[in-house]
């Protein structure tokens, strides 16, 4: 008996067919998760073709062909018309030789089955299977594969909308300097106008620079130096208001200042720290901002000695629950993760009454990230 363990290991013929199908599907999935484009169609169509086993397979958007795999490539220009007809029908349709005029002898593309790809109740494209003679079985298979592709595209849509949401939040954050902060800063500056006009003028200029940075429209990333400069301005203005009650210590390794970070990823943390720090018992609070060089990475810590927070609340804030005290936390965490990967989420160390420390780790280099 030749190698019986092997047979047992791989299961029956039917099992193996299932494995093959699942494997092809898993190979096609990553490309499709990027959405329906010529590139993703090109990269996934080979594996989809393996699933169906017909002479040729095409993917189209609603107007024209995106990718073709298999024989009979001269039929490619007919895909657009078939796609239009299928989109109009809104369901799987079979096309025969009249729809596919061909004067090449021996061409095995004599019929086609096309299924619409429906994402969010909207047809975004079609999957077209070309065969010598379309059968009911093939039609069923086409239908199922199209449904599977559509589900993957739906996931892609979900990814994209999550990113859009994140961008919208950043935009909102830019516009969302707290009205209290503006009011209080201007009030504090006003109080200096008579007693110390020079200081008032300086603070006004800081205020102008601060708002200019925060309202900046272009660029997803900035350097840590820029971000910290803005943090410093913010702290200067808060100090003008709180005076000795707000103690600030900065320890910044100059080596990490050129690191590229997502825009406004430190400032919300500092705002939280100031708020928490000053909520503590009378006598004010101390804030410590540290940026350290750790070879390939840069570590930034924002620490306050304030009231602290229940770890569960922080966990919920990081999970994206809104309406909580720490507004920026979930957003910053989400953006760090989408930019640098899940290894680089926020780390929050806190307990009621024990102060809070938020640790941000940023790699010095990440592909596609530059200020």
């Amino acid at each position, binding site marked *: 008996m030749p190698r019986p363990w092997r047979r047992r290991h791989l299961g029956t013929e039917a099992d193996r067919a299932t494995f093959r199908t699942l494997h092809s599907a898993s190979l096609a999935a990553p490309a499709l998760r990027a959405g329906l484009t010529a590139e993703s169609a090109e990269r996934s169509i080979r594996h989809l073709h393996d699933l169906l086993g017909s002479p040729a397979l095409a993917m189209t958007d609603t107007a024209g062909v995106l990718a073709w795999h298999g024989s009979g490539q001269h039929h490619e220009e007919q895909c657009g018309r078939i796609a239009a007809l299928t989109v109009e029908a809104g369901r799987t349709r079979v096309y025969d030789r009249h729809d596919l005029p061909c004067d090449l002898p021996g061409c095995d593309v004599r019929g086609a089955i096309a299924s619409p790809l429906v994402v969010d109740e909207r047809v975004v494209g079609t999957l077209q299977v070309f065969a010598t003679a379309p059968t009911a079985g093939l039609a069923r298979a086409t239908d199922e594969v199209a449904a599977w592709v559509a589900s993957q595209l739906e996931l892609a849509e979900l990814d994209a909308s999550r990113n859009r949401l994140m961008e919208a939040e950043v935009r909102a954050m830019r516009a969302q300097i707290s009205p209290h902060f503006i009011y209080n800063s201007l009030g504090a500056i006003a109080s200096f106008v008579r007693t110390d006009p020079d200081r008032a003028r300086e603070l006004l200029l800081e205020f102008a620079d601060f708002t200019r940075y925060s309202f900046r429209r272009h660029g997803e990333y900035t350097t840590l130096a820029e971000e910290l400069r803005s943090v410093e301005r913010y702290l200067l203005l808060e100090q003008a208001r709180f005076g000795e009650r707000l103690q600030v210590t900065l320890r910044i390794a100059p*080596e990490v200042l*050129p690191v590229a970070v997502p825009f406004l990823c430190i400032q919300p943390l500092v705002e939280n720290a100031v708020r928490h720090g000053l909520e503590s018992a009378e006598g004010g609070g101390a804030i410590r901002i540290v940026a350290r*060089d750790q070879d390939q990475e840069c570590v930034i810590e924002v620490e306050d000695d304030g009231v602290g927070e229940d770890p569960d609340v922080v966990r919920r804030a990081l999970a994206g629950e809104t309406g909580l005290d720490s507004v920026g936390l979930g957003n910053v965490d989400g953006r760090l993760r989408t930019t640098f990967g899940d290894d680089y989420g926020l780390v929050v160390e806190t307990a009621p009454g024990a102060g809070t420390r938020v640790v941000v780790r940023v790699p010095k280099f990440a*592909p596609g990230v530059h200020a």
Partner: protein
Amino acid sequence: MSPGLDAAPGIVAITLVTIATLAIGTWGLRFSRTTSDFFVASRTVHPRLNASAIGGEYLSAASFLGVAGLVLINGADMLWYPVGWTAGYLVLLVLVAAPLRRSGAYTLPDFAEARLGSRGVRAVCSVLVVAIGWLYLIPQFKGAGLTLRSAVGAPIWVGPVIVSMVVLANVTMGGMRSITFVQAFQYWLKLTALLVPAAVLLVVWAGDGATRTDGGGEWSLPLAPGGAEGLYVTYSLIVATFLGTMGLPHVVVRFYTNPDGRAARRTTLAVLVLLGLFYLLPPVYGALGRIYAPELATAGSSDALVLELPRIMVDGPLGEVLTGMVTAGAFAAFLSTSSGLSIAVAGVMSQDITGRARLRGRRLGGVAAFRLGAVAAVTVPCIIALLAPDLGVARAVGLAFAMAAATFCPLLLLGIWWRGLTSVGAIAGLVAGGIGSAVAIAWTVRVSAPSGWVDALMGQPAAWTVPLALVTMVAVSRLTRARVPADAGRFLVRLHTPETLELDRG
């Protein structure tokens, strides 16, 4: 020499340098800045300070000990080593410094990935960084053995073991941060440790009536012996040193500290000045050694010249103090260069090798991966240093330069200045240059007494490996034209546009 009373200054110097290095590495320099001087915090590293740091990390055992020894034996011909090691920064300044900074890359593999968008190129680059780093570390450890033998009469294996232990302790315990200020201090320490004794020795020499060397015409003439082969070796050396500097892993990471491309250029310019100043000194030792210690040239321990000369020329306590100074400088040279190299190698390893390793099904965390990488980065070259035959410190470093020139130089030059480079072409060129250099190094280590053309070609391979790698890279890129990254043009615009220009760098 037997260990005894005359070992005292050496032991004191080495102990002091070791303790200082460990202390700084463990506790770091803690600058606390409070509200009063707020804006100081966001001020970036000044190019001059950064240049000193690069100098501190760059000036290795080869510069401190090797050059003087080579000049002692082979004469003016060998001045090409310090000239090349300095002029490498000229090439860096003109062609690479600013664009490399603007690419945002921290390490050489980072640059390859950013430019070509390929994990494959990144992997090949990582392997090469480790290879060049090890090749560079071996002579550092060998030099340490030599220093300890000369200073305190210890067996030759003690030096490599001590230096690697100190470096390992430093790097794993907390020295992950490569503090600019400390490295900058190292440069000035090395310069002083060489400059003061040199000045004293020159005074002594003048007092002796300023005797001229009896080395005759051949010693003081460049290119006198060797004929065509000698000419080839010199040109090859020039190619290796001029083009190899840009491929040294521990030098490139320092450029990241510059805030922009302009600062990167200014830093490089300052490095040129600092190195030019430093490299005036080793030839002085070489020439004085020719007069006062010709026996060292024949004894085959020419690398110890810098350490022995003060004692030979000056008697009494002054000689001992000067010996202590050069010993401290030499030891600082090993420690700073090997720390920088180990950190660079360990960083690349932790990112691309140990960071992916799994321990009981869990991925190794950042610090654990870095430490594991550091252990490998230090122990492997240390063991090789103990086992491998002696090539001479400067010559061994020259081979590391030749490998860097044959691999990263083509990648950087073409990556920065030619949009047609493809990932396949880059890999082909890197592999061709890397294999060519490896073959040459293996050959050189095997042959003990080089003679004839083949040995010359293998002993100084850069003159043929660099063109080989360049041509391979261009040819294969041409053949795989379809794989030019779609964003190549945009990337090059970003590399070459000054930051002050308003531009969509998307």
